[in-house]
Every structure is written in C-alpha cells, then in structure tokens.
C-alpha cells in the first residue's frame, strides 16, 4: 500500500487522496482567453520535482506536496499556510 503523509491527519493510504495538479502562476484577470485557457487546460507534465495541490477526501483538507514525478516519490507535504510562509510560489 502506498502511503502519503497528510499535514493534518498523518500517514494515510494514497486512496484517501486526490491530486489537484501542479501549482501554477495564476494569470491576471485581464490576461486574455488564450492565457486563461492555457492555465486551466494545459499541463507542463514536468519530469522532476514539482509542487502540487493535494486533497484529503475524508476531511476535505487541501494541502501542498512536493513530489518527484520521475520516481513518483512524495518528498514532503505542508499546509497551505506553511507553503505561503515559504513564499507561496509554484
């Protein structure tokens, strides 16, 4: 069983989580349709270490995880507040 550590609930089976995708820079409100379409629909699919939104389904708790997509290894997870303290950037 693959285990992921939730900042609120601790180690849990990966089946309790849903991935919200990589954290991306949000466009300005007036950035235009093409830029917003890219933001919403296009993923970089980067091979390397990425920051992602993750969701613990039973508690409806969103948090941030750092994951190496090459090995599918979660390096660390943190609350949104902790992520913002680190600068809050993708």
């Amino acid at each position, binding site marked *: *069983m693959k285990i992921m550590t939730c900042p*609120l*609930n601790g180690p*849990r*089976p990966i*089946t*309790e989580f849903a991935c919200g995708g990589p954290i991306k820079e949000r466009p300005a409100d007036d950035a235009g349709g093409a830029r917003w379409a890219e933001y919403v629909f296009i993923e970089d699919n980067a091979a390397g270490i990425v920051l992602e939104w993750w969701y*613990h*389904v*039973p*508690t409806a*708790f969103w948090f941030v995880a750092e994951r190496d997509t090459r090995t599918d290894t979660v390096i660390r997870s943190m609350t949104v507040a902790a992520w913002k303290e680190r600068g809050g950037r993708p």
Partner: protein
Amino acid sequence: MPVAPAPLRFAVGLVPTGAHDTGAPTSLRDRSLEPRAGVKGPGAPAFLAAHGIVTDGIANRAARHPAGGLVAMLSGTEVLILGAAAAPFADYGSGAPLAPGVYPVPRFGGTYWFSLAGPGAPALLATLCGVDLRPHRFADLAIAQTMIARVSAVIVRDDADGLGFHIVGDITLAPYVADALRKAEGP
C-alpha cells in the same frame, strides 16, 4: 428524544441498537437515534465555550464531556459532539449561522453512528480500513478521519466501557457500511 428525520429512520435498524455484548470478540451497535451535533467555523471554539464546551483546538483528538458523550475536534474550528453533550445543540438543523462565523453541521439527520466494541474490534477494522487502529498505535480518544470499506468515515476510539470505537459517516452510506462491518465480523 428529537424526532428522527426521514433518512435517519431509513438507516436505523441495520444493526442492533441495544447494549454491547461484552462477551463477544466484537459487538456492533447502532446509536443513530442518540444525540449528536456538529459546529464549525472560526467562531466555533468561542461559541462552544460560551455553551460550556471548552476545546483545546487540537485536531483529531476527542475529550469526554461531564454531561456524557464525547467532544471530537475534527479540526481547530470544527467539532463533532456525540451523546448527551450534543443534546443542547439538537435543534441546530436549519443551517442558519448560530453566531457570526459559527455554522451548524447537520450531524443528527445527516450521519449514521455505529459503535464497535470488544477485543476483536481493531482486527475487524483492519480488514476495512488502512489506518493502524491497534490499541498501542491508536490511543484512547484519538480520531481518524479516514475511509472504511472505501468510503469516508470518522473513527473515534473510546474506551469508556472497554475497548471500543465510534464510527460516524454519511447517512446514505449506512446500509453499505453496516453490511461491510457485519461481513467482516464473520458468521
């Protein structure tokens, strides 16, 4: 006793409602007709304190209330109250804010409440849940907001009357969870 909403009546009776069988390795009991309530929001701790329920703000920990029952902290600002201590909050079903930043969670009509007791309870739950609920790993009054048989549930260990667990989840899943627990109990 408050009048049970229709969905609750539908779910009640899936498992026995009487006292636990203390001689059995596991004993499953339906407590869905007993009081329970939920309160959440940034103002919830102060609101509850004004009503005699003082919380420590530590998520996933429960405390026994002098009036009976448990006060379970699901997060720093959300509380699930099980048993007699929930009775004063039983009318909070309208969904309207109770105070600025304080919102009711319709636990009585919206959730089932089973309790599972006995020395075999951790082994039974291990067949349905990925969290290690063995007594030396999951302390008395610990909470796991997790999944049982692949559906969400809140599990609270409560050893007030011997090793036992409260299981609370969405009322519409009560028949499924009851069936899964009964099958896990075996013949």
